[in-house]
Every structure is written in C-alpha cells, then in structure tokens.
C-alpha cells in the first residue's frame, strides 16, 4: 500500500535559489511551473518566524526582513554545507533546515496546484557546488520529506530548457548563470538529442547580492555612516531601496534613493556609469570562470553559436557588456532568466521519471572540480616536499567517471599510509578543500615499490564520490565513506531533525495571502514615516475584517488594501 503510494507520486523539479525558488514538473505540455499561494511562480527564499513561533516562508517573510530583521533570514543557500546555525525566535536552524522549510512550502504549492502527492524531486544546484554543499542539498530534501536522488547543475538545467525550446541541432553554446548568490558558466553542445556539457566553472560567492553589497558600501562611505553600526532594520530598508535602484539602473540612466537613517533623511544619487565603476572588481571576477570554461572546453569564442544569459542578476547591463566584450557578440535573451533553471529542472524531473516524450534526450554532465589526494614529491634539488595535490579525476571529466592511479609509500617498511582526499584546483593541498581521509595498513617488511597502492576514484551521475584503495601486494581493499565530513548531517541526525521540523508549525497555505498583505503593510510602516498613521489605521481595519472570518469580505478587503498600498508605494 505504502509502496504503491510511493510509486504513483509525482516527481517535481525545483530551483532552490539564493533569493528565489521555483517548483514545477514535466506535464502534458512539457515543463510547467506551479504558482505559489500568492499566484506567482517566484517564491522568495526567505524564512521568518512570528511571535507565536510559527514559520512564515516566501513573500511575507521577505517583507518581514524589513520589519522583523532578527526573526527573518535570507541568502542561507550560501551557508549550505557549513554547520552554521541561525536563531529565529524560539528555533535554531541549520542551513539545510531552512532550505527544507522552503522546500516544504514549494511542495505544498505543487500539491495544491496539481492535486498529486510529491514523493521525489530533482533539485538544481550551482555547477560549482562542492561535495558538502550537494550533500546538504540532499539532506534538505530529506528533511522536507521527499526523496532527492538526482541533483542537476543549474547551467545544465537552463541549457536543457533552452535547448528543448529552441530545438537547434548541432550547436554549441555557453550558459552564463548569474543568480542571487552564485555564478556558474557551462559550455554545452547539443546534437541528435544529446545534451553534452563540455565544461563548467563558477564562483560560489558571487551573485546579485554582492553587487548590492558594493552599493551599500558606497552609500555608507560617502555619507559617513558606520556600516557596522547600522541597525538590522535600517540595513534591511537600505538594501531594499538599493535593490530597487539597481533594477532601475538596468533600464539606463540614473536614479536616486531616499532613506531614513536615524533622525536624518539621506538622499543618494547613482547613475549607470558610476555603478559600473563601483562593480568593476566584481565584473573582473566574472571573467575568470568564463575564461576557464572556454579553455577547458577547448573552444574559441568564435566557435560558440550562442551565449545564453540566465539568473536574475544577469539582467544587469554590465553583464551584457562584459559578454559582448569577451565574445564579440550580444548575448541571447530568449529565455526568461528567472524561470529557465526551474524549467530545466522540470525537464530533468521528466527525464528521471523516464517520460516517453523525452526518450530522445540524453544528458551528459561533467564533474566541475578536480578530485585527488595529497602526495609528497621530490623537487629538482632532490628534497622531499609535502603537501602536493595529485589529481585523479580532472575537472570537467564527463561523468560517470572512474579512474585509478598507483602510488607508493614514502619509505620502505612503511606499515601505514594516510590517504587524504581533496577537492580543488590548486597544486598545493592546503589551498584545496579536504573531503576526508583513509588509513591504510600496509603489509610489513616490504619496500616502497612492493607496497604500491592503487587508488580508484569513482564519481557517479548523482555527484557521489567513492574512493577505493587497494594494496596491490595483498589485494586488501579500503573504502572511504565520505559521509562524515564536517558540515554534513549524518542519517541519524537527519531523522532527529526531521521529527523536530515536523513539530514546527508553518503558517497554513490558505492564510498566506492575508499574511503577505499584513507583512507588506508592516514593512511599509517601517519604511515610510510619513504614512505611518494611515497604515496603522489600515492594518487595524484589516485585522478587524480578518476577525469576522467572512471569507468573501476578507477577499474584497484584501484586494482593496493591496491596491491602496500599491498607490502609496508609487506616490512616495
């Protein structure tokens, strides 16, 4: 019975973004996205906790970032794979749990829209996500009560969506994915239904939020404000205004912000040229992954057919300028940058479900980073130096991939060997990320040559790395379980936290709209001092209507309230 329920469930595709998340599936007409309770596709990746300890997710939580900054949290995708904990009201959450709360909300939306139970998901992750970060994403899925077997790299997802939409055969293209918090580049080729990723590169700490940081820093330094002393409220308001300004700059020309700092009102003007100058260091950081991906794919800019921009932050004109300067052509914008990844994840979910209409499509992806072990080597002077990184799986190898190399212990008669597994690109291990280590007992009384050890790395399509070491003389095998790296929850912990999460109340979906309206009103109350009285009155009115529990009246009042706030925001 239970098994049957599992089998008949729906597989969804989820784009779990730094700033926004989306959910959808591969339906009758191809990929479809499910709207959230407010009717939109984009659910802000923000979690907030109200005074009663109930969890609020989405637009309402985003508005609460301004009115209740200490009880709300955003951009936690950047902390995935770390054990960092966030206190929200009475609860303490790890990044996995915060993501799980987002996932739970998305799944509730999907189930409400489709009427089917969601049992499994394909979640998109930045191509450059590390092993720990991928594991944390899977753990978030488990904490949300669904199975996550497959993760799809975000640029690959975008390419899938784009490729299927355009149906262009035999073309090579580059996907430039600048999201809220991460930057990814992938070079792909499509032919005969095969989507082949040639290379991926990226920067996990570069996204729209960083451009906002740059603006924030500029305002504060220019107006002699100590950034560290800003209260969370003030900071939230400033960032919101800057975000709006940043979007306006995209349409060209100049814009200005008005902002209340303590007692004084602060005005600040910015034009596009200035913004470009301020964000120059960030633009240069965008260059490196682009060059790296092109080099790894072994292609010249002229050999690319298209450059596809996805991710909300890629709307900034300076991105288009960078791309046209590097590649000598204008990037393509046929796809909706916010939805492309989610649509691709939907296609991937269809592939996972073995949807008959996708039978022609085969996707091959790459391992985005180099995996190897620590070795010591002799330099020209004959001295033995330690801490070198010996790659076994090179970055941008097509997965699944399994490769083995043979290593010798440093000394004769060595009886133990410590195998340290690293991920990274630097020739020295100290600059790379340690994934784990394996202790190998060697047979006694043998020389180093006799005691060679074969180390095999296997990296599968789901991004799981398996390390196997075989002592060639005895055939003894050692296997490394990479589950226990710091920052990753083990299965027992996941079960315990799942129970704890189940006990936390999430605001019911049908009350979301009321909640969102109230949260927005509270945000406006914080932001616009001059309209406080008016807003307070409206809030009181709305609360009394809510108390009446007359659904029709509530709906009507909610609409009017929303329109009134629209007007207010426009006039101020």
């Amino acid at each position, binding site marked *: 019975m239970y098994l049957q329920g599992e089998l008949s469930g729906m597989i969804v595709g989820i784009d779990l973004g730094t700033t926004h998340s989306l959910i959808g599936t591969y339906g009758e007409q191809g990929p479809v996205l499910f709207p959230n309770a407010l009717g939109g596709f984009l659910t802000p990746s923000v979690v907030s906790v109200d005074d009663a300890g109930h969890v609020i997710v989405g637009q309402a939580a985003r508005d609460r970032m301004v009115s209740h900054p200490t009880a709300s949290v955003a951009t936690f995708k950047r902390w995935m794979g770390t054990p960092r904990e966030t206190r929200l009201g009475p609860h303490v959450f790890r990044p996995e749990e915060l993501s799980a709360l987002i996932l739970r909300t998305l799944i509730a939306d999907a189930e409400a829209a489709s009427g089917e139970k969601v049992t499994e998901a394909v979640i998109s992750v930045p191509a450059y996500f590390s092993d720990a970060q991928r594991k944390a994403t899977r753990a978030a899925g488990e904490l949300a009560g669904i199975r996550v077997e497959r993760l799809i790299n975000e640029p690959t997802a975008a390419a899938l969506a784009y490729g299927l939409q355009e149906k262009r055969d035999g073309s090579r293209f580059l996907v430039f994915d600048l999201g809220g918090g991460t930057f990814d580049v992938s070079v792909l080729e499509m032919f005969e239904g095969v989507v082949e990723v040639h290379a991926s590169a990226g920067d996990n700490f570069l996204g729209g939020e960083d451009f906002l940081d740059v603006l924030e820093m500029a305002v504060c330094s220019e107006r002699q404000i100590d950034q560290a002393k800003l209260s969370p409220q003030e900071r939230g308001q400033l960032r919101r205004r800057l975000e709006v300004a940043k979007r306006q700059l995209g349409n060209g020309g100049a814009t200005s912000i008005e902002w209340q700092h303590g007692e004084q009102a602060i005005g600040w003007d910015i034009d596009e040229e200035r913004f470009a100058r301020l964000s120059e260091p960030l633009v240069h950081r965008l260059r490196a992954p682009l*060059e790296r991906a*092109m*080099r790894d794919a*072994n292609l*010249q800019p002229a050999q690319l057919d298209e450059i596809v921009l996805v991710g909300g932050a890629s709307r900034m004109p300076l991105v288009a300028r960078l791309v046209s300067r590097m590649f*000598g052509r204008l990037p393509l914008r046929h796809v909706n940058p916010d939805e492309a990844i989610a649509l691709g994840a939907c296609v991937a979910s269809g592939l996972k479900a073995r949807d008959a209409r996708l039978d*022609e499509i085969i996707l091959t992806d790459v391992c985005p980073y180099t995996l190897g072990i620590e070795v010591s080597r002799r330099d020209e*002077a004959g001295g033995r130096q330690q801490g070198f990184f010996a790659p076994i799986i090179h970055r941008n190898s097509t*997965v699944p991939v399994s490769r083995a190399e043979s290593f010798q212990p440093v000394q004769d008669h060595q009886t133990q060997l410590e195998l340290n597994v690293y991920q990274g690109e630097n020739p020295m291990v100290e600059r790379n990320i340690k994934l784990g280590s394996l202790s190998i007992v060697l047979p006694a*009384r043998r020389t180093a040559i006799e005691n060679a050890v074969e180390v095999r790395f296997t990296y599968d399509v789901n991004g799981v790395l398996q390390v196997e070491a075989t002592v060639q003389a005895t055939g003894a095998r050692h296997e490394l379980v990479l589950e226990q790296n710091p920052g990753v929850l083990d299965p027992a912990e996941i079960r315990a936290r799942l129970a704890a999460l189940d006990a936390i109340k999430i605001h019911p979906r049908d009350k979301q709209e009321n909640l969102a309206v109230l949260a927005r009103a509270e945000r406006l109350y914080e932001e616009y001092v001059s309209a406080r009285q008016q807003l307070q009155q409206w809030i009181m009115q709305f609360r009394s209507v809510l108390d009446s529990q007359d659904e029709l009246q509530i709906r009507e009042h909610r609409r009017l309230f929303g329109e009134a706030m629209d007007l207010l925001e426009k006039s101020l």
Partner: protein
Amino acid sequence: MSSPLEWFGLTGDADERALKRAYAQRLRTTRPDEDPEGFQQLHAMYQRALAQCRSQGGQMPAFPLEQDVPVTLQPITPQEDEPAITQNALIEPLLSQEAIDAIAQEAISLAMKGDADALLAWLRTQPALWSLQAKARTGWRCVERMFQEVPPMPVDCQEALLGFFDLDRVQSRIDAASLARLSRRMQLAWEMQRAHHETLRRRVGIETFTVPKIRSLLGEFTRPFSWPSVLMAGFMPSAAHRRAQFLTRLCQGQFNDLPASFDRRRVQFWLDATQGGVTRARLALGVTRWLTALFVAAIIGLLIAIAPANRNDLGGQPSSLDLTPVSVMLGVALAPGLLWAMWMLYLPLDAWHGHPEHVPVRWPWLNLLMVPLLCAVGTALKLWQPDSLIFLLPLIPAAWLALRRFWRRSATGDRVSPNLFRFGFFLLVPLLRAIVQQDITLPVLLLLALIPWGWDLWRQRAVLRITDRRAA
C-alpha cells in the same frame, strides 16, 4: 586493433557529424545513469574518434598549449607555429610575439614593485588580454621568464600574477614542486632587497633579531669562510644555534635556494655546528670554548692560589682541601670540559636509542635491550657494594633513556616541554633520598626505567622487527 572510427561502424574518412550521429545512437542504449561502465567506454571511444576526425579534417583544438603533454620540470614554451584555424574566419588575428613579450615584461616589472593591487588593476585594463589566446600566451611567457630570471617578487604579487592568468592550478602543466621552489626563491630574492628587510624579519620571526642585526648577519654570510671569524662568532652556544635557525627559516629548509652570494662553506659550518652527532664544526667550537674556559680557569686559579696564603697569615684554620693553584685550575677547567664531552656522547646515544621503530638502526638487539642491561648492571653494583652510590651511575641513565625513548616515540612526543621534564627528572633522585629514610632509590629507579621501556615495547608491538632492520 581497429581505429576508433571503425569501432563506431564508420569509415576512416567519416566527418564529425556522422560520428556524432553514431555516438548519439549508441548512447540511447548505453545511458550514463543506467550503464556507467558501458558509458565510460563509449565516451572514451567517442573522444578518440573525435580526435581522429579532427586531425583528418585539419581542424585543431584552440589551445594546443594545454593538450595532453606530460608534466615536465620546466614550463614548456608555447609553440611558435600557432596552428592556422581555418574553420572560422571570425577568429581574431593573433598577437605578435613581440607584443606578448612587451606585456609580459611590463607585468613582471610591475610585480617586482610589490603592489599586487596595482598589478591586477593594470592587467585588467589591458585590452589585449581580453583575448583568451593572447592571455594564455602572455601567462606562459610570464612564467617562462620567471623561471629564467627568478625576479624578486613578494608572494602576493606572484599569486596575483599566476591567479590572473589562471596558472595556479593542477592542470596548468607547470610542475608544482618546481613552482613552489621558484616561489620561495622569488620571495627570498624580494626580501633580500634592503628595503624589505623588515618583511624578512617578520617572516623569520626570531625575537631577538632586529633589522640591523639581520643586515649584519646577511653581510657576514657573504664573506668567505675563515676559521677565526666563525670561531669568534660561535663562541656563545646560542649564537651558533640562532644562526642555524636563521638560515633554515630564511630558505624554509631548502638550503639550495639560499642566495648565490652566500658563502656555502660558512653556511654549512653553522648547520653542522647545530646538528646532532659529532661534526667537525661542533668539535672545533667545543674545543674553542673549552680552551677559553681553561684560559679563564687558569687566571681564576692563579688569583685563588694567592688568596690562601693571605688567609693563613690571618690565623684562620687550614682548609680541608688543599687548594694548590694547579688543582683549582684543573677543577675549574675540567668540569665544563667533562660535562661537554658527556653531552657529546649523549646526543648520538639519545638519537640512536629513541629512533622510531620502523626506521633501521645499528645494533638492533642492543637498542632493544639497552635499558634492562643498564638496570641489571645497576642492581649488580648495588648488591656488590650496598653502601656506595655507585649503582646510580648506570641506573640514572637507564631511567632517563627509557623515559626519553617513551616520549620520543609517542605521538605527543614533540609537545612535552623537554626542559621541564629534564629538570623534574634530575630533581627526583636527591628528593627521594632526602625525604625517605629507607633506601627505596633502587626499586624506584628500576620501575622508572622498566615501566616506560616495557610500555613502549607493547605500544610498538605491531612494527617490532628485530631481524631485518639492517636490510635497508
């Protein structure tokens, strides 16, 4: 063996399109998520077939510099004859080698100024470096010149330069060990410049060394070796030790990388002077110190010898010791000499006895049974002459060696402060004798020697091999 193209059922002159079609066809039955092994084989064959196709079609990959060339010790120069890319006329014209050289030259001279931010800012504004090819070639040119000239350059500039050209990665085909060595040498060359001695001082991190002191030392190391000068400089034991420490930290333990201006013999002298075991430098310094002590003792002896005559004149009691000038001289001079000789003997003994078990040593049986043998001798002496303290002579070294061995071969050995330990140990025996009336010194010392010895053996049981230790 058939060619990769034939493996796909194609003729030798098949084009890329046909190959891709054949590959896609096979992929449908060999999906990467369902048949990982089959897919790996298929993909490897596809790559080879693709290479075959391209070599026939005259189309070359865009970055010939980075193709599967084995790792070498020196960076390989970019090939002079860039392949003509016929496929696409849009490809930008290649920059001339002179232009590349000029950019590389400028980049290195900027890096030698030591301002990484300025260097990066300059590199980023170079329009030529927006071209991927020009950037790759310039990067290689820079590395090549760095290997040839070893320009003085601080680490952050090296990192900025390599980072900008994306050459600080394992796939860059630059040998990592050579690059690490180059980096050390460039950093050292940078710090050897007079203006950056402060940086050097901070890195070396020896507290008593000020910048003027470092400058005088650097001057000293460049002077040719002469016995009087080193013996003078090394008269104080700490001076020799500090010099060796300074040299080691200067080149991070890689003595080959020390500046060519340093006098090798002088450098070697200081390193020898502080190494364990008996070396010429140690002997020379020791003899010098001992002779000086003898000289000082002679003067003191002479002074004291005059004194008793005066005391007798004052009608004091004759002293119990007969203080002749000669006996005083000998006493004062022999004591440090004797101690020094014992220390010289002790150091190799300690190193030999405390060697890790898996490393071969000489006389393995003696090494293993040293402590019980000494204990047995001590016990025998005690039984022979119960009232004499002579039994302490073998027993104290036995206990000491056992404890040292126990500590040296344990995982935490390096973390125990040896001075504190030594002090405590040598205080133990007189304390015991003073506090306790009954003579328990013998059993205590025996326990002190045998327990750590046995414990250590038990701990090392997995690697304990007596027979073939001399094999290597």
